């Protein structure tokens, strides 16, 4: 088939070419990966209703590059940074505004030797060896938003932990959207490479200063070598009209452990795809997710946990609360590859629907190609216990407060796995603000 070189194949290519101008300092291999990713996206297109994994999500509002790439970034005041876990001491902090690295708001002093936390420019200057993993993932060829991010990613956050490096403080990556992001697309990227025996916690926060629509397509990749231990905490509180289409990739070698904890409260349409590949014996993944969907929100979590070898464990626990006219999806696949004996995989999804207009889809799936495995999955969707509500009201507690208390009781256990006290407090506040009821219930202990 003949093509005229000057004619863009799709509306994303122009953005890509403009973006290239600011990437002249990038190595050829990276530019080639970006181009290959764009080609993959052009080939794949936006997933439509015919894609099984995307059938509940209407992507027409973002089709045809309606949120063009943002080439500059806006202003963020210090109060906004402060509110985003900014007043917590004892962390390494990277702040990104509209996808651009804000060195002025960041704090990375005192990293132990063997550890690097760098933006893309810094990583290129330092010739950090971990950088070569960027954009390498094979899934880029199959996942449209992973491909789009790889083509468009700007100031990447790179965390490289050398052999045996244990980070004394968590790395907090704050992704803030300014009013400049209104109507635009932003593509944050985080790459974490943990060599043998390394250990760290990585917190990712997604917040915005605008109630207008924008598109955020973040990707975070984790490469865990043998016996590496990484915790990832994600708090998604995007603006009320935002689209948040996130991808998390984790690849675990022998005896590595990866724990993921997500809290999703923001955005109009929010989806997180989580791909975990257990490649080495004894690898272990724990995925915890809590989502609170209010009126008008769509919140979606898809997980793919691949047990590719024997003696690996995985546990998934996702809980959702739906209020108003809202829709949520939990779709989780555990795939046990042939020969992956002694797999222990558990998966659980529980939804609490507070409103008759809430719609929770729950779809835990097992695909097992080995015979000596322990796999379980469970799914429940229910309303608040009417008897418990009456019992509380009969003691003088108002109806909305009683609902709030019972709802908090339902979600509270999800905070147990947050090992960073400041973050736990931050999440608790977010949850309490979301709950119905008046101030009395805000003191829940």
């Amino acid at each position, binding site marked *: 088939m003949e093509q005229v070189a000057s004619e863009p194949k799709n509306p994303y290519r122009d953005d890509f070419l403009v973006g290239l101008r600011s990437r002249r300092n990038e190595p050829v291999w990276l530019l080639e990966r970006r181009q290959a990713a764009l080609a993959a996206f052009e080939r794949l297109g936006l997933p439509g209703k015919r894609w099984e994994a995307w059938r509940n999500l209407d992507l027409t509002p973002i089709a045809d590059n309606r949120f063009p790439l943002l080439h500059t970034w806006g202003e963020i005041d210090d109060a906004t940074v402060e509110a985003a876990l900014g007043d917590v001491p004892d962390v390494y902090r990277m702040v990104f505004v509209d996808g651009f690295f804000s060195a002025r708001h960041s704090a990375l002093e005192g990293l132990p030797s063997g550890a690097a936390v760098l933006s893309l420019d810094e990583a290129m200057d330092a010739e950090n060896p971990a950088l070569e993993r960027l954009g390498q993932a094979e899934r880029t060829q199959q996942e449209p938003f992973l491909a789009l991010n790889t083509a468009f990613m700007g100031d990447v956050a790179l965390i490289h932990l050398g052999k045996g490096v244990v980070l004394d403080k968590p790395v907090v990556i704050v992704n803030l959207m300014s009013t400049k992001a209104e109507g635009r697309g932003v593509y944050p990227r985080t790459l974490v490479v943990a060599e043998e025996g390394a250990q760290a916690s990585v917190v990712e926060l997604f917040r915005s200063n605008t109630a207008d629509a924008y598109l955020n397509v973040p990707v975070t990749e984790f490469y865990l070598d043998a016996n590496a231990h990484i915790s990832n905490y994600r708090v998604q509180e995007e603006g009320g009209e935002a689209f948040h289409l996130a991808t998390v990739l984790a690849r675990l070698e022998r005896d590595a452990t990866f724990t993921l904890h997500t809290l999703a409260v923001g955005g109009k349409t929010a989806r997180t795809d989580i791909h975990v590949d257990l490649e080495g014996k004894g690898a272990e993944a724990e995925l915890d997710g809590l989502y609170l969907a209010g009126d008008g929100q769509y919140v979606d979590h898809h997980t793919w946990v691949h047990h590719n070898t024997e003696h690996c464990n995985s546990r998934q626990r996702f809980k959702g609360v739906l209020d108003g006219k809202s829709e949520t999806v939990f779709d989780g696949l555990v795939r046990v590859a042939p020969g992956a004996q002694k797999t222990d995989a558990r998966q659980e999804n529980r939804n609490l629907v507070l409103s008759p207009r809430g719609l929770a889809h729950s779809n835990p799936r097992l695909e097992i190609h080995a015979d000596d495995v322990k796999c379980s999955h469970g799914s429940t969707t229910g309303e608040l216990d009417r008897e*418990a509500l*009456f019992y509380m009201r009969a*003691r*003088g*507690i108002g109806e909305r407060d009683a609902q709030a*208390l*019972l709802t908090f*009781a339902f979600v*509270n256990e999800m905070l147990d796995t947050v090992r960073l006290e400041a973050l736990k407090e931050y999440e608790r506040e977010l949850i309490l603000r979301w709950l119905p009821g008046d101030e009395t219930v805000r003191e829940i202990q």
Partner: protein
Amino acid sequence: MLQIKNLHATVEGEEILRGIDLEIKPGEVHAIMGPNGSGKSTLSKVLAGNEGYEVTAGEILFEGKDLMELEPEDRAREGIFLGFQYPTEIPGVSNTYFLKAAVNAIRKYRGQDELDAMEFLKLVKERAKLLKLEDQLLNRPVNEGFSGGEKKRNEIFQMAVLEPKLAVLDEIDSGLDIDALKVVSDGVNAMRSADRGFLLITHYQRLLNYIQPDYVHVLVNGKIVKSGGKELAEELEKSGYALFEENAA
């Protein structure tokens, strides 16, 4: 304090209460006795405002206010306490927090300041001792994993903390061994006062050996068929409900 006039109530379309008249004055202890299915528990649920029960005729006045106009929480805030026959388990909400939320909701309604943590804790410790409740039960989720006796003690403990004007205790004695019954009864007796009314609902005369009522009413088939003093309970113990059931039919 409480006036019930010609009360009729239905559950899922079936009439359970068929014209109840009852008046309770401050300081009085009334006992309602009756066989299974007579409507005893329905009466307590109607008083507390459970939405599964529909009042089809009659009225209930509490201190002159039309109870039917009040939501369950407002009835509690006005001073009515229902001790549940089957206390509900509430996983994830600690007993102490639950009570604190209740106490403060009631105080707020009455225009009083909320209790601070210290005052509240003092009150709770004092009342828990009265019911011989271990501290550990206070910190556990409401009723979760409690034994039958612990649940009933917890009900009376809550009553002791909330200090209602009128306590409706629905089969607070059922399922209790004699030791537990004594503790529960002691708790109730300690709360008796000249300005507090009690309505005890029970299947067994045994409870009334420990809590001496001023009045006993026999409820059969949704109606009070006989009222009298505490000697009526003894009469019932000897004759059983059969005699009254015949009368009611």
